[in-house]
């Protein structure tokens, strides 16, 4: 049985000599990359043009190679990252950060051509990551559904929110 299966394997492997190859001759021939391809990471903006990242640290926490570092800014009010750094020389493009991101700020793009001669050139700061558009998620604006009052949105003005309760009202 073992001999038969080994011979069979040999035969089938040999037959692959006559199969079509799957190789794509990359630099001359560009492969098709789907929009959900996991390449270079970007930070997007919400439909109002504001930074989407609220520096919740979930991307950093979930990153298996620990290559995301950010710090919430010390300014009260909006949560925005003071710095946002991705060390692409460590990134494994697993996409877990995108999956963890509650605001759709961090997204992976189909761009993977980002080689550099120096490793230090692969350290991307916020200004390198931030784009002007909304990326793959055109409509979502986290602060419109969150309960905190920021960006000129007062309490009770978010989606599906009642106006603030009057704690001194005695009406039933």
């Amino acid at each position, binding site marked *: 049985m073992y001999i038969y299966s080994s011979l069979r394997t040999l035969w089938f492997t040999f037959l692959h000599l006559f199969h079509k190859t799957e190789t794509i001759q990359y630099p001359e021939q560009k492969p098709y990359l789907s929009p959900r391809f996991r390449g270079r990471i970007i930070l997007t903006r919400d439909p109002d043009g504001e930074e989407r990242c609220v520096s919740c640290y979930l991307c*950093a926490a979930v990153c298996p190679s620990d290559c995301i570092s950010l710090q919430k800014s010390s300014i009260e009010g909006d949560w925005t990252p003071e710095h946002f750094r991705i060390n692409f020389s460590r990134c494994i493009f697993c996409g877990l950060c995108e999956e963890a991101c509650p605001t759709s700020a961090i997204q992976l793009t189909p761009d993977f051509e980002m080689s550099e001669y120096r490793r*230090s050139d*692969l350290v991307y700061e916020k200004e390198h990551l931030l784009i002007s558009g909304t990326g793959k998620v055109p409509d979502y604006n986290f602060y419109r559904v969150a309960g905190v009052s920021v960006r000129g949105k007062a309490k009770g003005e978010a989606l599906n929110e009642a106006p603030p309760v009057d704690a001194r009202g005695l009406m039933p």
Partner: protein
Amino acid sequence: MVKLIIDGRAVEVQPDQNLLQASLSVNADIPYFCWHPALGAVGSCRQCAVRVYRDDDDQVGQIVMSCMTKLREGMRVSIAEREVAALRESVVEMVLANHPHDCPVCEVGGECHLQDMAVMTGHSGRRYEFQKRTHLNQNLGPFIKHEMNRCIGCYRCVRFYRDYAGGDDFGVFGSRANIYFGRASEGALESPFAGNLVEICPTGVFVDKPFSKKFRRKWDMRGTASVCGHCAVGCNVTLQEREGELRRVVNRYNDAVNGYFLCDRGRFGADYVQSEHTLRSARLAGSAELAVNEARAALARVLATPDLIGIGSPRASLESNFALRTIVGPENFYLGIHDTAYDMLDVAARLIRSARMTVASVRDVEQADSVLIIGEDPSETAPRLALALRQAGSAGVHARANRNAIPLWQDISVRDNGCETPGALMIMSPAATELDDVAWLTLRVRPDEAIARAAMIAHAIDPQAPPCADMPGIMPMQVEQMAAALLAAERPLIVVGCMTGDADALRAAANIVEALMRRGKQARLSFIAPEVNAVGLALLGGGRMSACFEPLAAGSANIVVLENDLYRRFPHDLLDRAFKQAGSVTVLDHIETQTTAQAGLVLPVASMAESDGIVVNQEGRAQRFYKAIFRQTPSLPAWQLLRDAANIGDWPTLSALVRVMSGTVEGLEHIVEVGLDAAFRIEGIQPASQPHRYSGRTAVNAHHDVQEQAPPSNEYSPFATSMEGYHGAQAGVPVPFFWSPGWNSVQSVNKFQSEIGGSLRHGDEGVKLGGQDQDSSGYWPVTISPAEPAVLLFIPCLPVFGGEELSALSPAIEARMAVPSASMNIHTAALHQITEGATMDYVTQGACMRLVTEIDDHLPDHVVQIVAGYPGQPPLPGPVHGQVRHITARADG
């Protein structure tokens, strides 16, 4: 022990708990919100539902709230039963119906009890699609950020703030579903325990405001076991650090000391380590900065001179003080504290060494059933102790509940039942204290009158105690009443502190304890020492400062001052003169002070957060703190700097120094048992100090150097500075961060306790020193030195916020500091023709303070209470006579 059957598993639990507590103690997790081990149960959140069966045959059972259920022998309980599990899930769903979609922008996210409970119940998807209720927030001051939308209405905050901590400026408003937890009007929360709301709130309504500015998730910070350095209680804290910056201070449970709570001074006061006052580089007077090796060479030159005088510090570690004491010689080592404090600490050290006297731990204080406070306001000098005293104040309430067979965890019933019961405290102090509402007797008396009364009480309890000469205005009946109250108790407690400025207060208190013990009582003493390591310094021993100024007057001695701002303690003209006469003045400190400004040579040393060492708290408990902050260019701990400069080979390591110290200093034999040796390993590996999920390791420094740096090393601590190492509780290892699977919030401390609300399973921290002197029974002589009548007596008031040196340098505390003022009663004011709000010069012993006058009718006649201890204020070490002067027009202009 009571036997329970929880989901078929037979367990034995302590009897006097509720079912929820009992289940948690045997690792049977029931979700809960409103119950808290320190606050008891009220049954308001309906989250802890379980099914209880009547007997073995009962298949139906009934759903009850486990926190409101008494234990019954052989009780059969089901947590996992389908219907009750579904009920718990639906409760979480309803709780979350109005909860905002905030977790990413909530500081509590990731350490949120509500998140944990939602996961525990299995609730995962929102079905409620209608409008969410919203609330406006209030500005609650520099410590706490308010985000009322997140409230789930568990009432824990008001129960802690009002019932437990005695605050009255915070409460619950509104009706039906629209309740609102906040203040009547915006403003800083007044209670010095408001910071605990952050840990009490099961979700993110109350958030640590300074922390929010340098925010990091819980898993992103290295936790280090430390001891709070802002008073002598020695609360255990965890310092959470990241990237060389102290991010926040959280409570580290220690059953014998701080339990679940910290005061705001400890929680928000540690930022002095990274303020503009932090001393970063060495310098010579009048010259620019010195390089590190130059500074060390200069120090070595100083230490090589013959006429050395060492001045220790009550805020430096035992190790640093001992190093200085060894280098200058014990006969040339002075404690660096004012003589009144010296005398009191001398007595206190003897009491701690005595085998007969029991000095109360904070836990003991909490359990006292009758308390006499002599001349002290603990809520200013030892806030955490005051919180414990407040719990002792309800001893009567508890006694009444016991009489009526109400379990003590039945919080509302106990309180309702005992609402008429007077407090168990007796307070003799010049000014009103925060604890007055739990006292059945408050006497507003001068310190000398308080001491006289204390001496009389001792004599009234045991006639063998030394009598006290009569003083005008003391009613013998009142004294007897107080003596009777102490005698009626099982565990009476006498509290005394340094505010009296007279060691006789402590002697009189010790006499009361002795008298009570002779009457068969389990009496205890609590002495409120002035600073974090004051008792350690006293146990180490050294000369008094007035003796120090004599050799200085003889001239040309070289002074080495260790982490001590002498200008806070001694009259400035005296110091200026002494420093001028001295051969040289060398100051080692971690902050810029008036003393460093006067020094010839200044060297930066590591603060408590940046070094390892031992401090001894007021009850003589030696506790180890570990290095929490690792800077790029670290300052060395003072002992190491001194060792290297004096070229002493005996102490290659911290442990070696501690061994030498325990062999040399009488009374410190047991300090070798304190803390962990640097060589300590668990199965060959170091305990880790970062959580498993510490993030950003390969990116955090990538903008400087794309190559990753090795984590910092600490040769004096066994803890690995990274996440690599042993995770989990181990005997004797202080917990770097409380976390347990499924319990991300601070409630995970449950998983580390031997019983819920009891001691830690792997041992509470600290080793109690003293207790070795056998022949120390007997009474102390007490002499009363009456204050001069009709002369103004200035009494210092050290406010919680600003009255302590280091915390006053922390920005959040600074924001809470009031304008220093002087208060007196209306009669005294009228006598001196002072009106409320007038700015006057208060003059004493060459020091002149220009203060705003306030009227406080609680104060006795001729007593002026002066807010002291603020940075830059002249020292006011104890009650002194003084006078008040109107500001002349010229001086005004």
